[in-house]
C-alpha cells in the first residue's frame, strides 16, 4: 500500500518535473532527479519480492508467472525493448514497436525466468547505491546455494516518469547488451523482417 502510494507520488513528481523542464529548459536535471535513497528503495522492493518468490516453495511454472509480473511492474519494459531492438526500430511503425515490446516481454521472462531455478533457496542482499552519469546504480549481492556470493547491479532511472530499473549487470555482464546481441542475431536470421522476428519471439 505504502509502495503504491510512493510510486504514484513519484509519477506525479515526474510529470510535474516534465512540465517544469518545458517551461524552464535551463533547469538542471539534478534539481528534480530522484535521489539515491529512492533508487535503493525500489531495488529493496524488487529484491524482497524475488526473495519471497524463490523461497515460496511454489511450482516452477507459478514462479515464472510471478517473475514476469515483477519484470513488468519494476522494469521499464518499453525502453528496454526499444533499446534491444536498436537501429531497426527507427523504420518500424508504432504497431510494430508495440507488438515487439509485448513479444519481447514474454520471451525474456520465459528465457531468463527458467534460469531463476538456480536462485531457489538462495537470497539477494541490497548494498550500496550511487548516482552514475544520468542514472542510479544499486549494488546487490546474490547468495546461491553452494556458490560463492556474486555481484548483481541494477541500473535505475526515473526518466520514464516512474522509478524503474532498465538494466541488470551480473558480475560485469550487461544484460541489455546481451539481449541486444541475441535479438540482433535473431533479426538477421529473419533477413531483417521485424514481423517475422515478432512471430519467432512469440513461438520461442
Amino acid at each position, binding site marked *: 500500500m505504502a509502495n503504491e502510494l510512493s510510486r504514484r507520488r513519484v509519477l506525479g513528481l515526474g510529470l510535474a518535473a516534465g512540465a517544469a523542464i518545458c517551461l524552464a529548459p535551463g533547469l538542471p536535471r539534478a534539481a528534480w532527479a530522484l535521489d539515491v535513497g529512492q533508487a535503493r528503495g525500489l531495488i529493496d522492493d524488487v529484491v524482497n519480492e524475488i526473495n519471497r518468490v524463490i523461497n515460496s516453495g511454489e511450482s516452477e511454472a507459478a514462479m515464472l508467472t510471478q517473475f514476469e509480473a515483477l519484470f513488468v511492474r519494476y522494469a521499464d519494459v518499453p*525502453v*528496454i525493448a*526499444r*533499446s534491444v*531492438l*536498436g*537501429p*531497426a*526500430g*527507427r523504420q518500424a511503425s508504432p504497431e510494430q514497436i508495440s507488438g515487439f515490446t509485448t513479444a519481447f516481454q514474454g520471451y525474456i521472462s520465459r528465457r531468463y525466468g527458467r*534460469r531463476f*531455478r*538456480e536462485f531457489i533457496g538462495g537470497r539477494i542482499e541490497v548494498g550500496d547505491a550511487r548516482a*552514475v*552519469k*544520468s*542514472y542510479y546504480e544499486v549494488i546487490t549481492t546474490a547468495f546461491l546455494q553452494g556458490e*560463492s556470493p556474486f555481484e548483481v*547491479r541494477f541500473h535505475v*532511472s526515473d*526518466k520514464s516518469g516512474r522509478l524503474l530499473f*532498465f*538494466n541488470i*549487470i551480473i*558480475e*560485469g*555482464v*550487461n544484460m*541489455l*547488451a*546481451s539481449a541486444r*546481441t*541475441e*535479438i*540482433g*542475431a*535473431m533479426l*538477421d*536470421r529473419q533477413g531483417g523482417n521485424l514481423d517475422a522476428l515478432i512471430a519467432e519471439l512469440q513461438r520461442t
Partner: protein
Amino acid sequence: MCLAVAGCSAPPLPAVTPDPYEGRNRSVHGFNKTLDQTIVRPSAFGYGGVAPGPLRSGIQNISLNLGLPSDIVNSLLQARPGAALENTVRLAVNTTIGIGGVFDPATAMGIEGEPTGYGETLHVWGMAEGNYVEVPLIGPSTDRDALGLVMDIFLDPLRFTLPTVEANVSTGVQILAGLGRRYRYSDTIDSILYDSADSYAQLKLLYLQNRRFQLGQTVENDADFVDPYEDPYGQ
C-alpha cells in the same frame, strides 16, 4: 619490479570491440562446439552421473589447491602481498587440515583465496587485452589472456617440483575438475552454446565483459555502454 608495476596503470578499454580474427575465431568456435557435443558434454554427464557430489567437489578442491602455488607466484608478480599471503595461508590450511586439498576448510574460515594467473599479471604490468581469440579446446580468450594461459601451463611452479607420476595425476585431476564444472554449470553453458541465435557473439560478449569485471576495469569506462534513454534506437 616496483618501478615496472608503478609505471603502468590499467590500459584503457577500446571504444568498440574490434574482432579482426572473427573468421578464424568462428571456425574454432564451430570446432569447439562439435567437440563439446561429441566428447566433452557426454563425458561430463557420464562423470556427473557416476561420481557422487562429494567426490566431484573433492576433485574440484584438489584442482583449486594445485593452482595455489601459481596463484601465489602471480600475486607476488602483481605486487599484491596481501593476496600472496592469503593464497599461502589457504594452501597451508587446505593441504594439511584439508588432507591434501580434498577438503576446503580455509573457505569456512573466511580464507577464500585470490585466484589469479599470468593473464592478470600481464594486465597489471600494463599489457592491453588485445583482440578476442577463441582457443581450440579452451574456449574464449584474448591475445593477452591466451599468452597468459601458455605461461600458466609452462611456468606453473608445480611443473618444476612434482615428479612425473604426480604431475600426470595432477593433469588427470584438472581434466576431471573441468568435466565437473561442465556438468555443474550445464544449464548456463548449454543455454549460451545451444540456445542462442549467435552463440559466438553471445559467448564473446559474456567473456569480455566478465573478464574486464574480474580485472577491475570499471563499467563506467565501458565505451560500449548505451544509455537507452538518450537514444533508444542507437547502437
